[in-house]
């Protein structure tokens, strides 16, 4: 069962990489900076792991690491999405 679960994750990982390649090769150079900051915000998804550590019942070293991780990931999420929106707002066609 363990091995099977691991293989399922590898499966998902491989397919997601292909989806990523397909989608991102279509992004025009003009949007490369917002693409980077936007994908940066998405990589803030590590917040999920951070919350699972910071929210443990007992206060241990994991809580401290989780707390810092939540702060780091949240900078990524909030900073990334907002700055991307700020940039994209400026892309206008006259």
């Amino acid at each position, binding site marked *: 069962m363990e091995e099977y679960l*691991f293989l399922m*994750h590898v499966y*998902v*990982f491989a397919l*997601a*990489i292909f*989806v*990523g*390649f397909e*989608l*991102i090769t279509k992004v*025009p*150079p*003009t*949007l490369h900076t*917002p*693409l*980077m*900051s*936007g994908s940066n*915000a*998405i*990589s*803030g*998804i*590590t*917040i*999920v792991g*951070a919350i699972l*550590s*910071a*929210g*443990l019942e007992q206060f*241990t*070293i994991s*809580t401290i*690491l*989780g*707390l*810092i*991780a*939540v*702060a*780091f990931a*949240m*900078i*990524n*999420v*909030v*900073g*990334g*999405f*907002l*700055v991307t*929106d700020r*940039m*994209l707002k*400026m*892309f*206008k066609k006259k």
Partner: protein
Amino acid sequence: MIIAIEITYLISSILFILGIKYLGSPKTARKGNLYAAIGMFLAIAATLLDQQVLTFEWIIIGGLIGSIAGLIMAYKTPMTGMPQMVGMLNGFGGGASLLVALSEYFKKNPNYPVDQGAIFNLPIDQGVAIILSLLIGGITFTGSMIAFGKLQGLVTGKVVKYPLQHPFNALLVLLVLGAGAYVVMFPSMMALVLMITGVSLVLGVLLVLPIGGADMPVAISLLNSYSGIAGSMTGFVLGNNELIIAGALVGASGIILTNIMCKAMNRSLMNVVLGGWANAGSASTTSSTTSPKGDVKSIDSEELAMLLDSVGSVIIVPGYGMAVGQAQHAVRDLTNVLEKKGIKVRFAIHPVAGRMPGHMNVLLAEAQVSYDKLYAMEDINDDFNNTDVVIVIGANDVVNPAARHDQSSPIFGMPILNVDYAKTVIINKRSMSAGYAGIDNELFFYPNALMYFGDSKDAMTKLVNEIKNL
């Protein structure tokens, strides 16, 4: 409840994919970003309902600190500072992955904090994922901080060399992999886990320090990719598909951008990462002393205004110099006065112009230049032949014709903008100094080239005034 949480993660993953899909066009890009943000919100909400999460005060404190810092960064950073900001965000992503992996290691260890004499059984796949999260996350964290420092001018933007650079770094990587293999077999070796963390952090510094300023587009793209892959590895540690998917998307994005940047410089990734170009540059400056010398003609703002008065088409080529001089608004004004005269104005943008992919486009968008006037190299390179005037603003190596014909030049083979094919080329620069590759630009000596010296912003503002006064 578990099923509800998993379904929410699935919806969130789909929103990320749709978000990136919509980022593919300027018309839908804002919507795409919003979709991804909603996806993130859902993922956070679902995680807070997880039965493992029992206390909320630390989450709230960390979340508040991060949100406020992110908010300030997002609104206080000027558009010219975007490369630094993206560099720093990469770092926090990598840092978070490192911390989560470390925390998971302690969580899974039954003998921590109290040694219960229990056997620490860590499945091999999780062990490997933890080690890789630590390694990639650590390199991304400190590497990005160095990249930030270089772009902000806090750390030297020059290529830094130190003795035994490559053997030493290779040794450190082997050390991490060896220690990692040991930890996978004997998970209770806590000291080794901490050592791996430390060495990975040092590696990030050592790997990015040698990379020169103008190679930053590659470094930033690569670190972007790493931050995604680190996220995926954390997904393997947690057994969470959404992290794996989101990380893979970001990883793919970074790899594609890295590849585009390398191709645009005609260099291999290894060459850039090892700080290679400066080698070639210093070797050939001696050999290229025979490079074309001759008369350099210069032009002042008044003459240039008169020249531009009677032309039909202009292509502007912006480079890092425009960003440094913050000249994007003055360039916009120039575009407007020229268009008022009925002149067709377009922009030609080299993929590695500036310090990150798309850097010039963002600056010109900020100055409200319509994005349909911005052309990628391959879309405009054939048009220089029938263009009256090209104005190069703060770009150098990417318009050096030596890349096309001089086999001894370090930039030989690099795709360039064929500005020399236009009737007249105006080059705005502060001085005759060489560009990043450290070589003279023979374009400056061409019969159809005219140097327009001065700081980019001042020079463009003066030119706009002269044109208005005609």
